[in-house]
């Protein structure tokens, strides 16, 4: 009889030891400071004038330059180098465009997220 009663008491005490723990979720969001650099505006470029000189028109070209009050001096390229400078320029232009668009894409991707968050907060 005693053994049964003691057994029941022991079981009751032991079940008291079991328990359910409270679930805690920690979440702390610290927004990163925005870089917010202004995109530089492209300045308007000055126009250039190319002059073609051949052995036939060289005298005439220099004479015209003097008449126009320009120093009779030219910085020259042969036809092959002219083609190369045109291609180099096109490469630089393409690179500039790609870099610029890449920057826009990054800005759009990351700042859109910030805008969405700001809109949600408001």
């Amino acid at each position: 009889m005693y053994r049964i009663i003691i057994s029941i008491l022991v079981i009751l005490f032991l079940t008291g030891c079991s328990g359910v723990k409270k679930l805690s979720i920690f979440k702390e969001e610290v927004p990163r400071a925005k870089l917010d650099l202004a995109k530089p505006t492209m300045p308007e470029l000055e126009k250039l004038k190319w002059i073609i000189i051949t052995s036939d028109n060289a005298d005439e070209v220099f004479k015209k330059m003097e008449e126009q009050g320009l120093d009779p001096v030219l910085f020259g390229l042969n036809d092959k180098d002219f083609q190369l400078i045109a291609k180099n320029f096109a490469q630089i232009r393409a690179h500039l465009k790609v870099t610029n668009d890449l920057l826009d894409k990054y800005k759009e991707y990351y700042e859109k997220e910030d805008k969405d968050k700001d809109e949600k907060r408001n």
Partner: protein
Amino acid sequence: MLGMRLFLIGIVVTAIAGGGFYVMKLKADNEILKANAIKMEQAITEQKQLIENQKKDFQAILTANNEMNELVNNLKKDLDDLDNRFNKGGRDFGKLAIEKTETIQRIINGASDKVLRCVEIAGGAPLTEEEINATKKSEINRECPSIANPNYVPYNN
């Protein structure tokens, strides 16, 4: 004998009190479980939202990549076109400049102005209405139609 009875009564009272406490504890546990379930549901909702956002991000990355690839290909086409103009049909640009000096000078000065505009556009300058609406060869900037004239579709005639 009386002591024995008192002992038994004590045990019964203790058992009843223990049972009462146990029920109260069960109720408290139940409350905690309910709160846990709510938190779990919230966590699941947040996770779903996160997965949804990740999908959107992935799509945005894919689109950006495709657009960049398209741009690079178009710029390469412009470059090939430039190369083609200098050497089309075995053309000797130098010889042509000797034969038609004035004409070639006029052409390269016109092209040079257009190239400067291309650089401005590549640097982020906005397109003009005229550039946006250009669809004919005579209206486009032939130095960089892929970036200067978004509505121009190349044609051969």
